[in-house]
Structure formats: structure tokens, C-alpha cells
């Protein structure tokens, strides 16, 4: 898929939604492979899911302001 789950998670945690959009967070299909394989048991898929919701709100606000 070409996504970097760790970066998407970190961008969400530091509240950098615009960077998450640049990193194609909306392309995530929430397959859960990242959470499945992560040896540190990070909640990647869950965090990215929340990040996508934030990104969707961000994008809708930007559309409205245009």
C-alpha cells in the first residue's frame, strides 16, 4: 500500500492532521495488518482510524472555506 503506519499514528498523536493528509491517511483501508504484525503491540489501526475521521473533518472544513 505504501503507507507508513507509524508516521500516521505519530502525526495523529501530535495533532498534525494536514501532514496526515499529505501522507495519504485517507488511502488506508483499515486492513489491520499493521496492528497485527506490530511487535510492540501499538494500536496502529485504531489510531489511524481515528486519524482518518479527523482528516475527513479537516477536509470538509477546507472545502467549506473555499
Amino acid at each position: 500500500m505504501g503507507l507508513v503506519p507509524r508516521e500516521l499514528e505519530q502525526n495523529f498523536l501530535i495533532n498534525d492532521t494536514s501532514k496526515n493528509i499529505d501522507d495519504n491517511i485517507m488511502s488506508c483501508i483499515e486492513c489491520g495488518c499493521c496492528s497485527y504484525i506490530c511487535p510492540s503491540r501499538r494500536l496502529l489501526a485504531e489510531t489511524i482510524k481515528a486519524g482518518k475521521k479527523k482528516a475527513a473533518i479537516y477536509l470538509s472544513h477546507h472545502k467549506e472555506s473555499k
Partner: protein
Amino acid sequence: MKELMNVTFAPHVRSNMTTSTIMLYVIAALMSSVVLSVINYGLYGLTLYGVFVSAALLFEHTFCVIQGKKSSIKDLSAVVTGLLFAMTLPPTLPLWTAVVGVFFAIVVGKMVFGGIGQNPFNPALTGRMVLLVSFPALMTSFQRPVYTTIDALSGATILGNAKTDIATYGYISHFPIDINYLLFTAGGSLGEISLIALIIGGLLLLYKQIISWHIPVTFIGTVFIFTFILNQIDGNITISSFHHVFSGGLLLGAFFMATDYSISPMFIVGKIIFGIGCGFLTVIIRVYGGYPEGVGFAILIMNAFVPMLDKFFRPNVFGDRDEKLF
């Protein structure tokens, strides 16, 4: 009424591979080298390993306690760091120097950055370089192993011998290449004693997919090709490509250190460039630098480029029509 079900997002099952499982595989891969080095260097070798590992665990645990965090020693990363660090050092190193080195490796090299996964540089090599710069005499006094297949060696290591030969005579003594060399080398650091043991350990990591082949193959391949070219130009510039590959810490560095997850690139093109850079710098330092061994410095220098490699060599996201450079 208490909660009957705990509803969470998918996935609801996880892989069996945890951080400590990965570390156990690495420890298992190193065990053959550890055992052979203890056989060769005796009880002091075993003591060194014990001191390194114990000090690493103690420093990591203490730092976690001071920070008020849960101790991270259960993930066994400190054990791996301690073992790898011990394997890069001469078997004659005093114990107090070992403890100083482990402090820099664990606390300065890893914990101050936030612990495992946050460090930008390899912790074992960080500690090694601090010791090399601070105590050069202690770090370069090697001991010839009990079992060695190379008798006509004036120094303790082939790389050191090559440096001395060029400085003194202007030419290099060439050593025979045979299968016995792979079993027990001419000496060097604690972990370099048996190349076959290191190769077996590296193959175990590849088989279990703990590491990918890109970095070790490109690292070792670059060293081989570059030294081959140099030898074609002038046979007295350096030792043979075979001896370059099978001397010093190249196999240890290529399989166990350059492939550390947090200090190596994530993507394939970045890994290949990282491996080539490490190999190139290793040869430059070994042939033209002041030190006989360049693997540690090469890996640390390339560690600094990893964020850039990850940024510029990120694959395009599937379906993304964004035109990126690579």
C-alpha cells in the same frame, strides 16, 4: 452490571512476534559466536559478556525508574545491546571500561532519545566509538586467540597487520585462503572469532525474516567489489577482497548492527543505498583512514542519513498519482 464484552476495533488477533521474541531470535543467532569466543578467550571472555549484559540491564532499568516509567528490560533489547557491544570489543578490555562503555551505549545511545525505537544511532556502536576515542590504547590491544589458523601474523588481526605492513614495508603480506580461516580467524574483537558462526547466525535471522537480505548483501557486496577494484589497480593498496569480507567486524556489522530496525531505512531502495554507503565508507576508512577497522564508523555515519533516505525513497502510495522524485 459489569461489562460482558470488550468491544474493540479490528484486528482482534495479533502476530506471535513481539519485541522480546525478535530479541530472543537475535540472541539465539549470536549464541554460537558467544560460545566459540568463550572457548577461545576463556573465563575472562565469559566475564566480559556477563558484565556487559548485566550493566546494560541495570542502566536501562535505573533510567526507567528515574523517569518514573515502567521498566523496559523485559523486551530484552538491553541484553542484545550488551552482547553485541561486547562482541565488538577486544577480549583484553578492563571491566571498568566495559561499564563506562555500556553507560554510553544504553543511557546516551538509547534511553535519552526515548528508549527502543527512538534512537537515531546504533547504541552498541555509539558506546564503542566513545571508548575508541577515549581509550584508544585499551581498545586496540588485541590478544591472539588460543585457536588460530594463521601463524605467520605479526599483529593480532589481519587488518591491523595490513596497516602495519604498508606503513613499515610499503607492501602487504598476503595470507592463504582456506576453509580453516572461516572456522577460527586470526583474532580481533570478541565476536569476530568464528566467521561460520556469524554466517549461521545471519542466515537464521534471514530465515526467520527478522531481517531482510538487502542491507547485508549490499553492504558485503560493496566491500567485496570496491576492494576487488582497488586490488586490480594496485595489489599493495590493501588485502584481498576475501580477507576484507571475512576479517574484522564486517559480518557482525552487516547482519546484526546495520539491520537494526530503528537505525536502518524502512524502504527497499533506501536499504540498498544504505548498504552501499556502509560498504563504501568501510573500505575508505579501512584503506585510507587511520583505523584498521571502519565498519562501526561507516554504520554510524549512514545512520545519520536514514531519515533522509526514508523521506526521499518512499514508494508511491498505491493509486496515488502524485509525482514524487522516486
